């Protein structure tokens, strides 16, 4: 009953019964935010940091984040690495294959604004927000696992604020 003591605003107890009432908004957004399964989409060195974050030292699992190899099972796509112009249609395709609600984290300088390839590059997409809508940007080259964890916590905060009335 620890959770119930923590959130008395949302949950009321019926005396003598086993029934709880709560807000549907709260339950839905909490459960969405607490099990963000992410698509493995590592295209460059950021993927190494993503792997490190997923491994036991930084332990992504404690946020409920488990990697999936299929976009159909994922809620989140972490674009880790340089996205070239040849790769961008594939990123869009994977994004379109994910079921809603879906979220995107742009990890690293390349996905934010082209990163080290901003100047003098004919092949690198200058920011993946030209291709897919991005929820959280994580700067860094590559970002440390702490930054990625912070980015995921930010995304969770964002998801927890969502309401059914906002669905479209």
């Amino acid at each position, binding site marked *: 009953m620890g959770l119930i003591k923590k959130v008395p605003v949302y949950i009321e107890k019926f005396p003598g019964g086993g029934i709880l009432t709560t807000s549907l908004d709260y339950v839905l957004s909490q459960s969405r935010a607490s099990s963000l399964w992410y698509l493995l989409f590592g295209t460059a060195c950021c993927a190494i940091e993503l792997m490190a974050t997923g491994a036991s030292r930084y332990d992504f699992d404690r946020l409920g984040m488990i990697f999936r190899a299929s976009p159909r099972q994922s809620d989140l796509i972490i674009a880790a690495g340089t996205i070239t*112009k*040849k790769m961008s*249609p594939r990123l869009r395709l994977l994004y379109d294959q994910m079921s809603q609600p879906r979220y995107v984290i742009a990890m690293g300088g390349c996905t934010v604004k082209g990163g080290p390839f*901003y*100047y*003098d*590059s*004919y*092949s690198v997409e*200058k920011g993946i927000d030209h291709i897919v809508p991005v929820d959280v940007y994580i700067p860094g080259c590559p970002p440390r696992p702490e930054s990625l964890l912070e980015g995921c916590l930010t995304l969770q905060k964002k998801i927890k604020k969502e309401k059914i009335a906002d669905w479209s």
Partner: protein
Amino acid sequence: MDHTELTKYILEKFPGKIELLDTGKAEPFFKISADFLLDFCRSIHSDEKLFIDFLCNIGAVDTGKKFEVVYSVASVKNHIRFDFKLEQEYEGAEIDSIQEIWAGANWHEREVWELYGINIRNHGNLTRFLLPDDWNQGFPMRKNWDAPDFVRMPEQ
């Protein structure tokens, strides 16, 4: 055969047709004319003492006035390697394919064609290689290339 012997041997084998460039490096670097390319490649490939059986790389350089196509070749058996290059005018640049000697030239030549716009005679499969299939913005490795979202590094 060491570098000095190799340089001497090649210069004596093709008198007047080949020029040694001074690069300051031990490996020799030659310059040949574009119409001599096929004959030169056939000779170094079939020569007993050279036996150049491996094409390492074909690259191109845009010097701002001309194109230079650079070939790096090696012999696995005789442990020698050297480079040679040829020059092409900016307008109508066209070189021969050397696939009949080294079949691996296919991809290198496609790359040279795609990024620099140097046409390859008798290539057979001159299609997009590294760039997207629907690329329509010209030849990106040329010095004067430009595109809407291309940002040049500002002068320091």
